[in-house]
């Protein structure tokens, strides 16, 4: 069961649906009677969200600029730019991009193979169900999947050593560092890509392929002229989601490296666990940094998804 992946699927489907409803107007609105009172019905939700999401988020944003003594300062935010923390952001961004790209490409291929118009129904069901479960994967279970596979005594490690004479550890590949985290992230990025891209692949109408064939085009021409251009916005948007997902992930890297790998979520963990001596507000500064990076990703994502939705209706 899993700690990573929740927000991404939701984000993509909510935006897609919103564009849908804009394009297709619903039934006529009812007369607005007692409108102010009606707002009370939504109040519990907004009160809850404010208390447990909005205000804490605001607290983080503001707290990053406060010092232990209580006055305003930019010292914490400036500390973000020290070499060690800059490296943490670099590492986080790097592993997020790598896992998003690899997970994205592989996930897209598998998505198309399983869901293209004409794929048998059972393949579709099996893959979607498995992807739904696998995309939520993380933490120790996921870490152990890879410790068992490419750990020092792992099945794949032994296989490569005994049957192919390759000692990956001698080459610097270790499950407890970049490679372990990368492969583990890809494990949930691929299913996440499948889930997020599924609506777009479903939107590839069989008629386009058939029309293209009847006009004399071969498969390559179809993909070059129609398939890829149509899927591109959704694909790129999905990759951005994957980026955000990997960037925010904490449990898996923690389990694999016990907090030792230099990425932002683990640095925050170390500050909170007291493993690192620092101003507690520095943890908030790190969190602010994370919010900024992810917010940028969302801002890149939204127009891409809107463009994609336009072609899918």
């Amino acid at each position, binding site marked *: 069961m899993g700690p990573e992946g929740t927000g991404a699927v939701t984000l993509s489907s909510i935006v897609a649906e919103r564009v849908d409803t804009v394009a297709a107007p619903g039934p006529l609105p009812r007369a607005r009677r007692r409108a102010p009172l009606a707002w009370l019905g939504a109040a519990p939700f907004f009160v809850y969200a404010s208390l447990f999401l909005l205000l804490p988020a605001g607290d983080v944003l503001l707290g990053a600029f406060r010092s232990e003594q209580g006055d305003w300062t930019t010292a914490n935010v400036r500390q973000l730019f020290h070499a060690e923390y800059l490296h943490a952001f670099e590492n986080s961004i790097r592993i997020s991009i790598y896992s998003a790209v690899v997970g994205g490409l592989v996930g897209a291929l598998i998505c198309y193979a399983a869901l293209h118009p004409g794929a048998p129904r059972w393949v579709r069901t099996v893959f979607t169900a498995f992807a739904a479960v696998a995309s939520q994967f993380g933490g120790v279970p996921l870490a152990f999947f890879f410790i068992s596979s490419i750990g020092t005594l792992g099945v794949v490690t032994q296989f490569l050593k005994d049957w192919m004479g390759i000692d990956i550890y001698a080459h610097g590949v270790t499950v407890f560092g970049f490679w372990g985290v990368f492969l583990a992230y890809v494990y949930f990025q691929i299913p996440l890509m499948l889930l997020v891209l599924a609506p777009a692949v479903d939107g590839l109408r069989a008629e*386009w392929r058939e*029309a293209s*064939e*009847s006009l004399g085009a071969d498969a390559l021409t179809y993909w070059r002229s129609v398939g890829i251009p149509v899927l591109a916005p959704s694909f790129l948007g999905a990759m951005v989601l994957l980026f955000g997902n990997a960037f925010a992930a904490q449990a898996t890297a923690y389990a694999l490296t016990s907090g030792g790998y230099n990425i932002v979520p683990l640095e925050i963990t170390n500050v909170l666990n007291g493993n690192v001596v620092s101003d507690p507000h520095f943890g908030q500064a790190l969190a602010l940094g994370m919010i900024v990076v992810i917010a940028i990703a969302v801002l890149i994502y939204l127009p891409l998804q809107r463009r994609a939705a336009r072609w899918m209706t």
Partner: protein
Amino acid sequence: MPHLELQDLRKQFGTHTALGGVSVSLAEGEFLSLLGPSGCGKTTALRIIAGFLQPDSGRIVIAGEDVTSRAPNRRDIGMVFQAYSLFPNMTAAQNVAFGLKVRKWPSAKRDARVGELLEIVGLSHAVDRYPHQLSGGMQQRVALARALAIEPRVLLLDEPLSALDALVRVQLREEIRRVQTQLGITTVYVTHDQEEALSVSDRVAVMYGGGIEQLGSPAEIYGAPATRFVAEFIGTMNRLESRVAESEGGAVDINGAIVQVDAVRGRPAGQDVLLLLRPESITLETLNGKPPAPGGLAGEVTAQSFLGAITRLKIAAENGSELIANVPSTGAQAFNVAQRVVVRFPSDSARVLDV
């Protein structure tokens, strides 16, 4: 030599027979409709002609060439789908130009052809619009232009108007016919709408259960249905079970009433036949006390439906038959419900089918 031939096409899907041996020949420039209810095999036949489906047996021959085993992109066929077939990432002009680009036409020639086709379908003003900016009717016109741009040997249309509004449907079907006649392209048109098929086709093949029930001109299909299914499927038809009363002069006994019908001449007396009569062939006389002249069916009007130019009447005849008659609406006030009438029809207007 026929331009397009379907030779004994057969196709099974598991235990279901989609096509059970269908054969048709089209002359060059002919417009043939495949008409029938869902599941009759018309779309299967069309997709086999296009190459998206392989028949279990049988051949497709275009201008003497057997194309049955050729891939769809090498059959030189233009196809218009029911909906959504325009490439969403391309403008109308780019869509129409697609097939020409594939054939590596030089760009000047391409642009000229695109302009020409869009002009023919009346969309010169929408050249740079994207599909999502076009109405359903306009999209189908672009789809037609795109299919025709490549100068195909055969044009296939798969229920191209089903997804459109009624008014647009009527306009567009006439345009399709006009363009088709102008360019002289052999065309196969699939539809479940009989009015559509009858109004634009040179010939109609009525299909049912994987076979062709009748192949003929629209007038033949309508006026002389060859099977019970065609009689029931096309238009409204009075179906009266009767027995041959007189072989020489031609008369039938409909549950006691004797009526003149030329079509039974030569049939043995006493034979059971199904009498087919179109509502518009019936004339009605009001009965106001005087006894009727013989040869008609007396009865009473049970229902009246105003349909615009004509009014449809339901009549319960004394011999137990139920009939439907059409009368011009301008005279319909004479035939209100409960009015006693006599039903008559010309002796040569009824068709007869074996039971």
